[in-house]
């Protein structure tokens, strides 16, 4: 069913339309939340919170963005609120990340040689927002334009953050492999 039709039904309070939205996007919402929170149970909670929130939130949806973009924005906001509430959002401040990147410039690791467990660890070092941004771009193939809408940032900032995050992850992996 077309997004516009689903939106119309959602505005009308249709549970079937919500079920269709669940079928289409719940997995992506869950994985995005998991990338941000690094906790399966909390990610499931966010998934449910987001979908419980949809029938009310859709009333204010102006249809300017795609439905999945809007849904990801709800997810990112819900995750950020949770992280702020738990005061766990101090994992790695932007300045800290910049310092690390400046100290460890240099690339060479190809994507295909990534060790998944090590990659998880490297990603965990990134701030939650940047981690989710990288996930949406590289795993979900979202456009920078959509990311700019989700995170409410200029496209240039998104590109810069993604570039720094990729550098950081690659350097992290390279460093750890050299240590082994």
């Amino acid at each position: 069913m077309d997004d516009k039709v689903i939106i119309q039904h959602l505005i009308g309070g249709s549970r079937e339309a919500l079920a269709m939205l669940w079928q289409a996007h719940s997995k992506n919402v869950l994985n995005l939340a998991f990338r941000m929170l690094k906790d399966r149970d909390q990610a499931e909670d966010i998934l449910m919170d987001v979908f419980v929130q949809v029938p009310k939130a859709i009333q204010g949806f102006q249809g300017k963005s795609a439905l999945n973009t809007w849904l990801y924005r709800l997810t990112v906001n819900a995750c950020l609120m949770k992280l702020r509430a738990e005061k766990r959002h101090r994992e790695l401040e932007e300045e800290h990340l910049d310092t690390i990147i400046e100290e460890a410039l240099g690339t060479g690791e190809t994507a295909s040689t990534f060790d998944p467990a090590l990659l998880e660890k490297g990603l965990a070092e990134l701030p939650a927002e940047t981690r989710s941004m990288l996930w949406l771009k590289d795993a979900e193939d979202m456009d920078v334009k959509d990311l700019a809408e989700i995170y409410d940032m200029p496209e240039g900032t998104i590109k810069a953050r993604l570039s720094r995050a990729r550098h950081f992850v690659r350097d992290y992996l390279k460093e750890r492999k050299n240590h082994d």
Partner: protein
Amino acid sequence: MTSKIDFSKLERLTPRADSWDKVCARLDAEAHATPAGKIISIKSWYSAIPIAASFALVALTALMPALNNRADSTETISINSSAPSEVLSWYSSLGNSTSDDFDTLEESVGFSYLIKE
């Protein structure tokens, strides 16, 4: 460098089987928690207060003539029919005297009249 990070080897989660049922249960609970009778939300109380004040004002305006009529209908008793002769003669002589002295009514007569009244 814009080449993507390879996320393909990372685990992709699937929502738990009962998650959708939980969402439905929460939505149902929310719907029950907001019964149809609970139309006026807390926010709307802000506008309900001036409306109530307006109603009260209109009601008072409507009641005022009725109260005035009731006041008009109170029985007026003439002093002539109720006062003793001493009081009446004192009352009728007020202002007729040529002297500047104020013609006072005897205290006991005045008190007994007031107590009677």
